[in-house]
């Protein structure tokens, strides 16, 4: 019986390949998955750019599929790969790179691009954004929906508390001091909120860097979770809720935080710059955007999604995919994308386009994320990244909710990460 099934499968697959081969002759068809992790109708923006591309390139047909959050997108793309109906390219979490390499799922862009012009294109993006896309001397991911964490603050509440609305906190001490003034004792307004569900490790990456220590090395095989500076960062986060009482205790929901900020329940929120346009469109009060405050230094991880090209593709598909990616990340489209979402323009050239220049002039906060790039580092990304990240997430939440001390929680996460990563060193 099993033999029969096997042959049946072979037959089905052979037919599939035949069909694929035949259709490839006429027009190249590309399937692309992409995730959305912040507010606003981003799907229509992506669809718009894709439509423009198809108008200019009638020989390529693109099917862009919105696949949920980053995790969903990765699951979907990899699952499709295994099931034999793969996508050719996908936007996925920039930090999925090691997992994708280990699964042998993607090709390096260096192996696809041919001309000198295309090679130069690989170097046209902000180098900090490329940190999560490059390893072992090759480029695997092209930045697309990239972000940093920025600090949104409600200027009205600053005025009401007697603070200068143009001088948001620049250090941890100022954050605590101002937060105390901004917190109302009846609980109707908090000083600050840093989300701790969804992507806690990401927010934590910022705190740890500000405290002087990055979370991992650039080979993706070592983490530094139990470093004293890292422990101190978690202690500070916990203290915001328990000692300084400027933030609610327990975990804070990533998804509903923006609503909390817009409802005036918190004076300050840390969130992805990808929320900028949604906040701008919905805030009924005067708000500001600033770089994150510093402890020993300023710092934030970059975040967001990169383009990847899958290995199970033929040369024609790869070429078409590169064309699509080049189109979607060209300065004009990157500028458009940045204005509509708040994500960063991924290359310096994007900020040189007339429309983004005008936009930044009228709305200077659109450039905060870019200006913060000089203080930014790569986002937590390792081999076995799912498990390692989950370990850190659990540790952060355990510390914030008080079930473990920051030190014990991080030690545990570190030893778990060591166990998982030993085999890659």
């Amino acid at each position, binding site marked *: 019986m099993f033999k029969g099934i096997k042959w049946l499968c072979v037959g089905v697959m052979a037919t599939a390949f035949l069909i694929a081969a035949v259709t490839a002759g006429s027009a190249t068809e590309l399937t692309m998955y992409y995730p959305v992790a912040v507010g606003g109708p981003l799907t229509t923006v992506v669809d718009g750019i894709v439509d423009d591309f198809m108008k200019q390139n009638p020989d390529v047909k693109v099917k862009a599929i919105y696949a949920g959050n980053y*995790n969903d997108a990765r*699951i979907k793309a*990899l*699952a499709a790969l295994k099931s034999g109906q793969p996508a050719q390219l996908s936007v996925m979490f920039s930090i999925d790179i090691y997992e994708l390499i*280990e*699964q*042998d799922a993607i090709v390096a862009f260096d192996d696809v691009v041919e001309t000198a012009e295309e090679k130069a294109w690989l170097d046209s993006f902000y180098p900090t954004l490329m940190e999560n896309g490059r390893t072992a001397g090759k480029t695997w991911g092209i930045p697309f929906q990239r972000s940093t964490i920025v600090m949104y603050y409600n200027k009205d509440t600053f005025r009401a508390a007697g603070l200068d609305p143009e001088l948001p906190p620049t250090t941890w001490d100022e954050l605590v001091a101002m937060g105390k003034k901004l917190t109302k004792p*009846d*609980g*109707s307004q908090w000083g600050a909120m840093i989300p*701790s*569900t*969804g992507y806690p490790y990401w927010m934590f990456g910022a705190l740890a860097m500000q405290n002087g220590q990055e979370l991992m090395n650039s080979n993706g095989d070592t983490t530094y979770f139990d470093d004293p500076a890292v422990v101190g960062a978690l202690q500070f986060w916990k203290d915001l809720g328990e000692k300084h009482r400027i933030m*609610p*205790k*327990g*975990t*804070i*929901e990533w998804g*509903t935080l923006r*609503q*909390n900020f817009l*409802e005036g*329940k918190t004076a300050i929120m840390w969130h992805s710059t990808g929320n900028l346009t949604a906040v701008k469109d919905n805030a009924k009060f005067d708000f500001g955007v600033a770089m994150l405050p510093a402890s020993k230094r300023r710092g934030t991880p970059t975040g967001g999604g990169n383009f990847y090209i899958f290995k199970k593709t033929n040369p024609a598909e790869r070429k078409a995919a590169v064309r699509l990616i080049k189109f979607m990340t060209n300065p004009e489209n990157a500028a458009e994308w940045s204005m509509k979402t708040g994500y960063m323009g991924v290359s310096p050239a994007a900020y040189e386009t007339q429309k983004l220049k005008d936009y930044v002039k009228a709305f200077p906060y659109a450039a905060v994320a870019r200006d913060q790039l000089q203080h930014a580092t790569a986002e937590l990304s390792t081999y*076995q990244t*799912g*498990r390692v990240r*989950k370990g850190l*997430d*659990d*540790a952060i*939440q*355990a510390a*914030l*909710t008080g*079930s473990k001390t920051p030190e014990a929680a991080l030690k545990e996460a570190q030893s778990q990460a060591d166990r998982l990563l030993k085999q890659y060193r």
Partner: protein
Amino acid sequence: MPAAILLIAFTHYPTVATVIDSLFSKATAIRPSRFVGLLNYQRMLDDPIFWKVLANNAWFALGTIPTSIALAIVMALFVNRAIPGRSLVRMAYFTPTVLPMIAVANIWLFFYTPDIGLIDQIAGWFGFSGHNWLGDPNTVLPAIMVMTVWKEAGFFMIFYLAAMQNIPPELEEASRLEGASRWYYFRRVMFPLLMPTTLFVLVNAVLNSFKLVDHLFVLTKGGPDNASNLLLYYIFETAFSYFETHFAAALTMVLLVILGVMALLQFFVLDKRVHYR
């Protein structure tokens, strides 16, 4: 017979395959899968998250099952007598059953959101300050249980209602003539007669408490720090987020064993019911 083929393909074959898969290691492009014996089980026993989700699931079952059964009986008693607007009331109880879990979870998320959610707003009128229901490991599981009870009680009510309508009304009259209180009647006459239904509902409730995880996707994703993680959700995470199919298979085995025990109970119960009929 086509039914048999489908059953074998999607129930029996995967059960066996789970046993086999649980004995192999994770395959990556660099290292192929190999036979590792009971290593996955060893790892499972060493995995604190596994024990945590198992304990959570036990609490979840203990918290939801008796409450929803008790509520179901009360509901059935309510609508089994002629109260004004009976069919409206009955409909209200039953409505959550026909709504998708994922949709109601969305609505409940708004209830639980700190400060601006409905519960905190109502608490605010009475002068209580907001509570972070889903962000506090002490309240997250109870919060989810409340929602589950809401979802399930109406469903179980139906079974009780059906059973109550099969109880001859003479029994109640007789007991009333004897001067027995209604509570006495319920305790000594009705409840024993409802016993087979209770057993049937119990088995179903236990089953549901292990296979119902849809709401976790919306409400908590198992957090904070796995405080609301349940076994099947952990299996999902392991298999489809970390791609550790074989470890997930070992976890599935635990679920299968639990359900196997329940299956034995079910046969026992079903047999009894046939005699009863």
